């Protein structure tokens, strides 16, 4: 596909444009300048960046202090270290203190692949869903990513944005309008609903095309906005289907699959759900993206296999 772009590049361009228009934005990194691909920003605004060294606790604490001092503080480092090492700083300094900090979880999920589980963040959404008053977003493509970032920089309060680590092609055109909380239906079908967040939305798009070839008409649902989430809208979209499959490069506990399960169960809606992701109690394997997704059946082929089986079982 064409027009692929790395979401970190989208992020840095959004930062440059924000400062250009007068936003008092201060990026804070933990030796993560290359991870954040932030050199174009530093080149244009050499005095703005704060680099705290390899020290995630003070990364987040400093960002909270900068925000209390009137800055829009944006942290940019690898999601696994942000979420796990600075967990209490996110909980207290950012969420509980309601500081105007935007946390960017770079190379999230299993983006780091072969670097293994120290470098995977398959728990970030579940951890942050347990924290108070932080908005949580997982963009699926460059255009959506840019709109989410522009919104986050305008919004006053804590925001987490989960960024995939690979260049991603567009799923939307310039007419797309991201709205916090809103669900994005990329393909309307009738038989089965496929739900995903972030980069795995691309897998369900491909899976839907393949399912159509075997006569299964799938709805493709992108959930970029985990909190807030218009759960009524999600429920109405899911209701007409015979089965639902959720897909995420995240543990199946606490991520998009859990969100869908909660929505269905609380509505008393007995549609069978299959949650695909890193299984309960497990880790993502250490491998490149294709092998990782194939192993955990969160690639198009695995989704087709699981969706077909679930759909056939419902027809009986």
């Amino acid at each position, binding site marked *: 596909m064409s027009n692929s772009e790395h979401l970190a590049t989208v992020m840095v361009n959004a930062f440059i444009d924000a400062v250009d228009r007068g936003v008092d934005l201060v990026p804070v990194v933990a030796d993560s300048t290359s991870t954040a691909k932030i050199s174009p920003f530093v080149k244009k605004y050499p005095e703005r960046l704060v680099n705290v060294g390899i020290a995630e606790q*003070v990364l987040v604490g400093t960002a909270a*202090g900068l925000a209390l001092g*009137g800055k829009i503080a944006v942290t940019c480092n690898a999601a696994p270290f942000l979420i796990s090492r600075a967990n209490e700083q996110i909980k207290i300094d950012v969420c509980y203190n309601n500081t105007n900090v935007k946390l960017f979880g770079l190379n999230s999920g299993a983006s780091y692949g072969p670097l293994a589980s120290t470098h995977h963040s398959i728990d970030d959404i579940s951890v942050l869903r347990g924290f108070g008053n932080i908005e949580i977003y997982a963009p699926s493509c460059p255009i959506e990513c840019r709109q989410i970032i522009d919104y986050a920089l305008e919004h006053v309060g804590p925001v987490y944005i989960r960024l995939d680590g690979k260049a991603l092609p567009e799923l939307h055109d310039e007419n797309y309008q991201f709205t916090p909380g809103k669900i994005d239906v990329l393909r309307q079908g009738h038989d089965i609903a496929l739900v995903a967040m972030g980069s795995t939305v691309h897998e369900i798009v491909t899976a839907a095309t393949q399912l159509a070839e075997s006569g299964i008409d799938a709805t493709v649902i992108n959930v970029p906005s985990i909190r807030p989430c218009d759960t009524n809208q999600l429920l109405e979209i899911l209701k007409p289907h015979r089965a639902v499959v959720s897909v995420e490069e995240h543990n199946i506990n606490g991520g998009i699959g859990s969100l869908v399960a909660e929505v269905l169960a609380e509505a008393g809606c007995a549609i069978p759900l299959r949650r695909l992701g890193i299984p309960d109690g497990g880790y993502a394997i250490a491998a490149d993206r294709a092998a990782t997704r194939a192993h955990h059946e969160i690639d198009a082929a695995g989704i087709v296999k699981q969706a077909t089986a679930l759909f056939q079982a419902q027809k009986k």
Partner: protein
Amino acid sequence: MNPFSLSIEGLEKKARAIRRRIIVLNAESPAGGHTGADLSQVELLTALYFRILNCSVELKDSKERDIYIQSKGHAVGGYYCVLAEAGFIPVEWLSTYQHADSHLPGHPVRHKTPGVELNTGALGHGLPVAVGLALAAKRDNSKRRIFVVTGDGELTEGSNWEAALVAAHYQLDNLFIINDKNNLQLAGATKDIMNTDPLDEKWRAFGMEVTQCNGNDMADVVATLEALQPNGKPHVIIANTTKGAGVSFIQGRPEWHHRVPKGEEITLALEELKDE
């Protein structure tokens, strides 16, 4: 400019009034309190709020006002008594300390209590946030200064030392780190549990300017704080204090870390804290 700018004698009298309030506040608490920690920092907070800080209710929205951060959040009872005396909160609120959903919870909560700048309680959070505030002030060419009081037991939290590196690297001489060094923590003597001495050498090695004072001697506290000048280094003031200072049967006793006065103890303490 501090709106009170009290003399040493005035500050000492204010400190006694605050100590009396601490005794009553803890006695009326339905959920215990940290009486010893509240008392050890009285001279520090009294000097700050009634002489040193450019901070008042009226300056709430000023970007030039100094910021005080109570990193040892468990000593919030004493902090509330200071905020009440300084007019940030009504004195009547003090009798609601730790009552259900009151304005005065058992650790500082800024959306509950006017004057509180940061929610703390988990230790090792005040200093990193203070570093961010100091950086923001530097970038804005603001005269704002950031004062943070930490415990000494608290300094075993590694986040403090991450923050120390950043503070020195960015030459944050608008940052004043006051260690309330009372040598006692929850389970006993700090030197036995995890020794942080020699504390001055550690801070100096991290690039700070270090001074020491008797943290329960008002004249010494004020002279020490007022002598500090910006010189490219963050300031550390090791305030040697006595936990429970000011009340003979509380001071220096570890059991008062999380104990409140009861019955006759209240009368005895208030008698000791009378103005002469």
